[in-house]
């Protein structure tokens, strides 16, 4: 399971090669393979075709596909979160909402600015933006796929009924997006939860491992959040810079064809650099932002259970002192204790897994990032050298 999951975020990096079949590493047992074989963007929603291959007996067929939307993924995720059974597990983070607005807006702007540039520039620019749109689209699909893969690879979650329904039921799950009231409720819940989280976090843990994990995760999450935001900003400005560079090139080519060609090429490489950084770094960070949030949630749940357990103990003590409702208090205490024990047990394993997974993922991504950067820089270098040679030869 662990190794399989390691590759979760890594899969994203493959995105630029096109929608690939599920990372094979994930499926060591091959009893359940899930991938998104196709996706369709329709106005403001995206339809994913979820394709499943399974030898598990609870599915009617060995291979089938259903069409799912983002909301249904969210529903699946929420069902996991709300299920008490899974309190002791890190729930794979839900995929982010598809967001093509920025890209679409740019395309629209381009359309408006059509008059001000030459046809050539326009088509080039359009291609550029379309490519960007496609990249975002693919990435979105990949994120959804990763979520499903992680669930499918999880020893407990893969057996979830909702998951099976999600995979198999070939009609609309009629999951609707949350309405305003529910959103408001969610919001309040979140506020309560985070307030509670602070309280719970303040409780000194009996177990050193968890105590350590708690402090680590709290800090780590914040840092990752920060890094992720910063890397996003960096990459965004890198991309913008590439875009301006592109415009610059198209203007320049009236002067020096050769140089302009060179710039065009280096710019493309530069764009690749930005894209790769995006994939290897920003996405990694983003994924671990969500993942660490999930781990934090797990810790919260455990902390909550611990607090409950302690409260139950106190209640039991009180009940015993008053000799009133002792039995009820005892059962509550028993339940709480069991719950806590159970959570602690699975949580420990989950957190250790999380760590290994994280380290492996970082390693892989960083190595790949460095390799890609090197590759691009070398490509650039070569281009520059040859161009310089030509230019100097000219003079």
């Amino acid at each position, binding site marked *: 399971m662990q190794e399989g999951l390691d590759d979760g975020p890594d899969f994203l990096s493959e995105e630029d090669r096109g929608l690939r079949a599920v990372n094979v590493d994930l499926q060591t047992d091959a009893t359940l393979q899930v991938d998104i074989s196709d996706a369709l963007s329709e106005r403001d929603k995206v339809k994913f075709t979820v394709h499943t291959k399974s030898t598990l007996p609870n599915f009617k067929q060995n291979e089938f596909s259903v069409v799912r939307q983002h909301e249904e993924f969210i529903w699946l995720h929420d069902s996991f979160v709300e299920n008490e059974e899974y309190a002791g597990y890190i729930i794979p983070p839900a995929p982010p909402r598809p967001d093509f607005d920025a890209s679409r807006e740019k395309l629209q702007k381009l359309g408006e600015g059509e008059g001000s540039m030459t046809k050539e520039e326009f088509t080039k620019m359009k291609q550029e933006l379309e490519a960007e749109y496609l990249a975002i689209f693919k990435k979105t699909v990949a994120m959804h796929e990763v979520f499903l893969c992680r669930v499918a690879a999880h020893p407990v979650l893969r057996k979830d009924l909702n998951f099976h329904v999600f995979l198999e039921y070939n009609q609309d799950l009629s999951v609707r997006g949350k309405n305003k009231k529910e959103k408001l409720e969610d919001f309040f819940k979140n506020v309560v939860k985070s307030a509670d989280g602070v309280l719970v976090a303040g409780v000194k843990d009996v177990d050193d491992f968890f105590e350590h994990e708690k402090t680590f995760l709290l800090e780590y999450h914040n840092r990752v959040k*920060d890094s992720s935001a910063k890397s996003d900003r960096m990459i965004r*400005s890198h991309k913008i810079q590439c875009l301006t560079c592109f415009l*610059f090139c198209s203007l320049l080519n009236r002067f020096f064809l050769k140089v302009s060609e060179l710039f065009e090429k280096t710019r493309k490489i530069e764009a690749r650099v930005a894209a790769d950084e995006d994939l290897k770094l920003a996405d990694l960070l983003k994924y671990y932002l969500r993942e660490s949030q999930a781990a934090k949630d797990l810790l919260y749940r455990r902390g909550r259970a611990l607090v409950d357990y302690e409260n139950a103990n106190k209640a039991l003590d009180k009940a015993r002192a008053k000799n009133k409702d002792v039995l009820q208090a005892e059962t509550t205490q028993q339940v709480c204790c069991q719950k806590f024990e159970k959570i602690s047990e699975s949580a420990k394993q989950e957190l250790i897994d999380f760590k290994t997974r994280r380290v492996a993922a970082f390693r892989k991504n960083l190595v790949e990032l460095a390799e890609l950067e090197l590759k691009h820089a070398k490509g650039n270098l070569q281009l520059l050298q040859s161009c310089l040679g030509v230019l100097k030869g000219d003079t």
Partner: protein
Amino acid sequence: MALCHFYLSQMAASSERSPPPFPDSEEPELLEDSDEEADAFTGTSISEMDSPSPDSTRPPKDIFNEPPEDIFSDPLSNINSEPQKKVDAKIPSPSSDEAVDLFSDPLDDDSEVMSSPEVQNPMPDLLNEPVEAPKSDVLGEPPVHRNAARHQDVFEDPPKSSSKSSSVKKAASAEMFGDDDDEEDLFKEPPKVVTKKPQPSGPPVDVFTEVKSDVKVKPQVKDDPTDLFAEEALTAPAPKPSSGSSSSRTNGVHSEEQDLFSEATVELSLDSPCNDRKNKEAVKPSVSAPAAPVASSSSKAPSKSLEELEEEESEDKFDLNISITNPEKVGDGMNAYMAYKVSTQTSLTMFRSKTFTVRRRFSDFLGLFEKLSEKHSQNGYLIPPPPEKSILGMTKVKVGKEDPSSAEFVERRRAALERYLQRVVSHPSLLQDPDVREFLEKEELPRAVSTQALSGAGFLKMLNKATDAVSKMTIKMNEQDVWFDEKIQDVENEEQHLRKLHVMVESLVNHRKELSGNTAVFAKSVAMLGSSEDNTALSRALSQLAEVEDRIEQLHQEQASNDFFTFSELLADYIRLLGAVRGCFDQRMKAWQRWQDAENMLQKKREAEAKLLWANKPDKLQQAKDEITEWEAKVTQYEREFERISATVRKEVIRFDKEKARDFNRQVIKYLESLLHSQQQLIKYWDAFLPEAKAIV
């Protein structure tokens, strides 16, 4: 220098065989006149010197024409009267020339004479002695002394200006060179100037033809005095062999080899009648002799070199390095200004020394531009525009203490000023402008006043407005010259294009700066992440990554300033320059319009005349005819002016294009190199990081 002269003189000697040594015979007679004339000439020469413009060619011609006649007429009547001595004494330079001739002439067997030339060849130092010896033998005493004295002067002067120049100097130093400085300049410069002159183009030809005509007149005189020659030859060689002869020869050589002459020739006449004689013998030598004095007069040099320099310059990079350094705030508060150190390094002889530094403030630069454009722009010259005045930026500098943005502003301006000055001096005709030299050399400049109100931007705006107005007015100008037609279009398109490009580059720079800022922030954030990571290897790798990002941030920053300084500023410069080019076109258009107006006026006058004729009013007819001739003259004058300006503009634009191509090429290469460098660094950084990433367990 001296060596050079000698070398040349040798060459001259070999090539100059043909000219026979007759001149001396005439000398006596001529000399009398020569004395008087010398004054006259010096007078003229002064005027020429004062006027640095190319027109200077004209006066000399006139002078030339006149003197010869006088001289000749006199000599004929007074031949063989007195003054050998006089001649020798007073006109050393000519005598030297003769000496040269003598040497070259195989016919003359005077041993003494021969000896002197030989002496010449070896070394300048030796010259003094040998010179004296022959003198004593051959000549009367007075001349010897004088000559000797002069020689010494000549030799003492390190630059070794020609002896003639020295003689000229003595004769008319007071008048010619009001300033001591000038004198010095003159003397130092000659060598270079001489070398430059060889290339002259147009004017020389005229000189030649004139000279030739003169020559024809004179021949009779020449033939007679062959006998006399011997004596004189003796006298002559003794005094002047060294510098005088050498210089004259060098000139002669040039003239022969390259046909290059210059107004300088005109001045020859100043020196002595001997020259005239020479002219008779061979046009070239005579011309050559005068060249030396010309050379010495720096002001003359410009006129010639205007055109020649251009070609010269395109071939080999001329030797003038200007750098602006040490911007320094002078004064306090709103009266503060930035002073820049302008250092010049040159081997050009027109400057007093090889390196010099002055302090200039920004308005001085603007003042220079104004002076130049006042003088030259109507001729169609492309005056490089100075950077624009920036009230905002300057105010910041004045108020702010150590603000990075104001430091950047100052640096930006410094670089812009440097490029501006470099452009000015790389313009062959502007370099010759006395104002430019003054700007580079003189300690204190009078404060440029009018620039205060007139910031570069404002000025350009005004110019543009005027341009537009004019072009609208004369939009009907039917362009006969396809080249101009296309060029004007080109320039306009290019300017627009460059503007766009400039905006683009600016945003590129801004984005890159933004990127660098964001990278820095990210680097910090990653460092934090690394510190909180509990896997040691991963933590290490992350902090390494932070370091890499930090360095990349540096790279981005460097790149941004590279973008800025190589491209953005270059583009800004060329946008300004293109404005100036348009200004040139407008000047041409104005000239055209003047011409057309005159043409129209002429037409009207003619019609009026026809009417008068028809109306039969003879009294007014004469007046009308006068007016017609007057206007005809104007029309031709304006037409010529237009043609001249067209030619100049054309040349200027071609030059500008060439320069532009070179500039862009250079900058692009520079830019690419900077990119190359940053990519190399990038590779280095990531290379170092890779093992760290792999070490994560």
